[in-house]
């Protein structure tokens, strides 16, 4: 296979959500054909640039998945299957990217705030950001304001993503923003928030930079901010 064909095949299988050859895809009858794992390994052996795989195959195909999700053509399991493919591909590619000196888009500290144990949405967003080229530092769930702040300092992270799924815990997001201000860090950090009870109005109320309705939205927002 030529580089182009590898890229196309990887992208196709990310959209189909097939990690390995044995996996079923979104469409019928793909079992047995090579999946993302086989294709990425084979592409590397054939000298395809890891960076090209990330940009041309993974990022673009996840954008396509995002559009399909937006149109309700794809549902949560479809999206997760694709995100899993990107995660697996990134695990294979990471050592090669580091060797090639490819820089990440920046460190992104992500956490579900104190008192809140919901992790599903936060995990999906973390996987997608990883796939989009960010270095994700996942602090887990029920994370105190202090731990978030010290992780930001320690990593000099320019981005924070906060998740809350409860009306009682979403207030903690505001405390994080206040603490950043007190510490003189507010201007050097972009704060994104998400989770079912949150909204753009709420983001504005607590002084966060943006509300993201899902992982795709987060990537879009970051892209717009970078532009």
């Amino acid at each position, binding site marked *: 296979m030529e580089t182009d064909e590898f890229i196309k095949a990887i992208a196709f299988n990310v959209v189909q959500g097939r990690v390995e050859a044995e996996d079923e895809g979104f469409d019928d009858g793909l079992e047995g054909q090579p999946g993302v794992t086989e294709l990425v390994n084979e592409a590397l052996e054939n000298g395809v640039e890891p960076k090209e795989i990330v940009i041309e195959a993974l990022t673009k195909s996840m954008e396509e998945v995002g559009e399909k999700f937006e149109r309700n053509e794809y549902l*949560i*399991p479809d999206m997760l299957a694709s995100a899993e493919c990107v995660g697996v591909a990134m695990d294979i590619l990471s050592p090669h990217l580091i060797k090639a000196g490819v820089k990440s888009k920046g460190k992104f500290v992500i956490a579900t705030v104190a008192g809140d144990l*919901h992790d599903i949405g936060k995990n999906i967003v973390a996987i997608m950001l990883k796939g989009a080229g960010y270095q994700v530092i996942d602090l887990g769930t029920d994370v105190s304001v202090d731990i978030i702040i010290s992780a930001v300092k320690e990593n000099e992270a320019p981005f924070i993503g906060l998740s809350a799924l409860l009306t009682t815990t979403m207030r903690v997001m505001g405390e994080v923003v206040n603490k950043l201000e007190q510490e003189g860090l507010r201007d050097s950090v972009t704060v994104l928030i998400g989770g079912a009870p949150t909204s753009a109005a709420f983001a504005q109320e607590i002084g966060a930079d943006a509300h993201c309705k899902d992982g795709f939205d987060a990537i879009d927002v970051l892209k717009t901010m970078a532009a």
Partner: protein
Amino acid sequence: MIIIAEKINGTLPMVKTIIQNRDQERLLDLAKQQVAAGASYIDVNVGTGIGSREDEIQAMEWAVETIQKEVETPLCIDSADPAVLESGLKSRNGRASLINSAKAEQESLEKVVPLASTYSAPLIALTMDESGIPKTVDDRLQAAEKVVSACERFDVPIENVFFDLLVMPISTDVKQGLKTLAAITEVKKQFPGCKTALGVSNVSYGLPARGRLNAAFLCMAVYAGLDAAIIDPLDHEISAAVKTAEVLVGRDRHCRKYMRAFRK
């Protein structure tokens, strides 16, 4: 089956408006419709996500007083905040209530379990502790253990404890349904006398034809020994599933309930 009717929940846009406008008529209407559809308890959750704790306490008092003026059905006082729970229980003035809910975290147990004792009310306890959403059956049992010891300490009989075994969406992990079902059976075996509860509809989150999945899951949970279902009793499919499942596992003497539903 104990039916905990879930429609009065402040996170639903329609209910949020009712609470904000203090719309007595529509609140009562929601309560009465659910009673007519077979609710054993009407859940009352007034958390709208805006306003302070004080606002939520006032909203809870208003909702409880409004409903109990015309409806005799017991209420299920629902909040993550113990102060809101207490305001609801107080407003009940000794009428039957169910507390929804405590978590197996120290702070929650210290504050909510005593309410079950003071108000002699049964209590829903979520089988999750400081370590987060349980991933396995064992995680749930360990959390249940903590609840049981708190209940012993505060003199709440095990018969008054409903363990919520936590339903997770299968759309994000397809093995989760089975874990919840296994936990129902296990918790009842380990803590004889305890009851079990599930918020069924979470199982189908993110999938098409949710009603069908909810109904099938409820049937399986009944077989596993479920005592209480947190559902929308106005949803025909799920209410039918309750009656169908109960008659099939022999929990409907002479098929009375099933046949009565059929005659309607």
